[in-house]
């Protein structure tokens, strides 16, 4: 198996279609195949053992992904937003490597040994760089070869490299995408950065389904909206912070986006209020909420458009609340919620989320496979399954608040706070307490008329129970997120730990 099977099938059936860029002058599937062959030849002629990509979303992405697969070397997208030291450290770990980079990153990496750095614009003009192109069909078919190395976002500790093998990603596509299913008018706007697993899965899905990719180099809500209009974009994938900012910008502009038929969001906690507003500003779109991890080749659970419509229209509060769930497992993926002792949790009871399936890699270059003997992977997220089989994700296990021996999920407290119409965003986390070990603290972003701390405490007490009532309530301008939209509760905890709760 090789990712190149996906491109080969697509080109066989749809080689003349524009695969990336504007309809009138974009890159066709045939051209993408040719450029990937050129890059594969260049990699084979070099000493590179990996292909590093250090760039924004752009035309170079699929050439790099498929060219690396063709040559049989891992594709390693790294975060160009890292400070110099961090960026160089990741590149050093990948050496010897061929690096495709924007001009600024190319300069910053110039001092690292073992890198052959090629600036992106020059590369796109001449992908072969003087080397003979690879021969049609001569990619390696070892399903266990490493296709992609992704440095996980490292909300805790130094980044680890998650290993995705060809069989994981090919299984994901064959299991979730229908071949050549996109109409010739369909286009997907790609704003998620290349070092996010969703960029990898989205590239593969678009190519295989025949949908044109419209890359957006720098995410900005207004630029995104303008590009959607200019390019007739029909499909979008966003992390929740991006969706929230786009919804705000559309509100401010007094506009709706009628060409968009499908919006997928995931990769962090999304708020029901944002989703409900999004349903209004994308009147023609079906919404899909995906839950997945880098280590699982992206999505393992999805709340699809039909689920969204049914839940949004339901009079049943339990059904309506499911808008905030992660949906149900993909075909071929199993989900199990387990208690601390490894037994299956009861329906509705919180525990650790475990997943199993052909696409589940669960492996790091540093620590090897993390799968148990039966192929299950512990996500380190906590959550529960409801009576209809919908998965609710409460948050990272590391974020669980332990107050007087009682485990509490920050997500549950945040969801309760967000039911207040003036609460725009909320974060709950544990802070040290002499009496309880940990005590609940919350930071909230509000609009006026803002509720008082007392009202918010009453709200949590009424919806949950008294042990969940926050000892500390802080009103803040905004909450810290990393650049792929993950809420950094750990950072808030650090900020507040220097100043402990009295008692």
């Amino acid at each position: 198996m090789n990712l190149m099977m996906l491109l080969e099938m697509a080109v066989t059936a749809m080689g003349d279609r524009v695969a990336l860029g504007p309809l009138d002058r974009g890159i066709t599937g045939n051209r993408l195949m040719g450029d990937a062959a050129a890059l594969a030849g260049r990699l084979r002629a070099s000493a590179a053992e990996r292909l590093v990509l250090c760039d924004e979303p752009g035309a170079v992405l699929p050439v790099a992904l498929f060219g690396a697969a063709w040559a049989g070397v891992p594709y390693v997208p790294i975060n160009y937003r890292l400070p110099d030291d961090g960026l160089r450290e990741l590149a050093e770990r990948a050496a010897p490597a061929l690096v495709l980079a924007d001009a600024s990153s190319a300069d910053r990496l110039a001092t690292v040994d073992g890198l052959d750095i090629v600036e992106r614009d020059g590369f796109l003009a001449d992908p072969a760089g003087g080397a003979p192109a690879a021969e049609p069909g001569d990619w390696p078919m070892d399903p266990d070869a490493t296709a992609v190395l992704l440095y996980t976002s490292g909300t805790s500790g130094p980044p680890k490299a998650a290993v995705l093998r060809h069989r994981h990603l090919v299984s994901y596509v064959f299991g979730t995408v229908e071949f050549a299913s996109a109409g010739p008018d369909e286009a997907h706007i790609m704003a998620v950065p290349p070092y996010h697993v969703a960029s990898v899965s989205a590239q593969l899905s678009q190519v295989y389904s025949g949908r044109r990719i419209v890359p957006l180099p720098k995410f900005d809500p207004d630029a995104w909206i303008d590009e959607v209009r200019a390019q007739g974009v029909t499909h979008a994938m966003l992390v929740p912070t991006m969706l929230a900012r786009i919804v705000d910008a559309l509100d401010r502009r007094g506009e709706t986006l009628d060409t968009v038929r499908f919006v997928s969001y995931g990769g962090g906690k999304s708020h029901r209020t944002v989703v409900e507003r999004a349903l209004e500003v994308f009147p023609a779109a079906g919404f899909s909420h995906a839950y997945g991890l880098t280590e699982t080749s992206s999505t393992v659970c999805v709340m699809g458009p039909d689920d969204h419509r049914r839940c949004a229209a339901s009079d049943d509060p339990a059904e309506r609340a499911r808008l905030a769930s992660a949906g149900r497992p993909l075909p071929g993926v199993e989900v199990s919620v387990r208690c601390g002792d490894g037994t299956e949790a009861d329906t509705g009871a919180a525990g650790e989320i475990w997943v199993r399936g052909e696409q589940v890699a669960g492996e790091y270059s540093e620590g090897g496979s993390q799968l148990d003997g039966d192929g299950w992977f512990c996500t380190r997220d906590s959550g529960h399954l409801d009576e209809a089989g919908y998965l609710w994700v409460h948050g990272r296990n590391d974020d669980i608040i332990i107050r007087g021996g009682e485990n509490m999920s920050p997500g549950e407290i945040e969801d309760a706070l967000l039911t207040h119409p003036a609460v725009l965003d909320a974060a709950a986390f544990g802070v040290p307490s002499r009496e309880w070990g940990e005590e609940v603290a919350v930071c909230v972003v509000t609009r006026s008329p803002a509720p008082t701390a007392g009202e918010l405490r009453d709200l949590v007490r009424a919806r949950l129970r008294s042990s969940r009532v926050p000892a500390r309530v802080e009103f803040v301008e905004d909450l810290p997120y990393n650049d792929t939209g993950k809420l950094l509760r750990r950072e808030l905890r650090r900020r507040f730990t220097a100043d402990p709760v009295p008692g």
Partner: protein
Amino acid sequence: MVELRPGARFQSTVCATEVIVVKGTGSAELTCGGAPMAAAGSAERAGEPSADASEGTLLGKRYGDDGETVEVLCTKAGEGSLALGGAPLAVKVTKPLPASD
């Protein structure tokens, strides 16, 4: 007989067809064009599909048995048609997948 498991790839020995197993495990009599299929890349093509098994395979289509125990995806199209244990495999009606990206 071939050993089925998700991800296993097989080629026709009488036409250009190649498939990958999406669902199903265990020994099976998988044929294309009336002749047993072989592990992909392991066999030379010899002969032609038999007349009663030459309706062809379609690129990217999923084929399954009536009992829904086996599903294979056509990764290269050819002139032969697929069968499992002598029973033709039919193109599966596409049920919309829960697209996530």
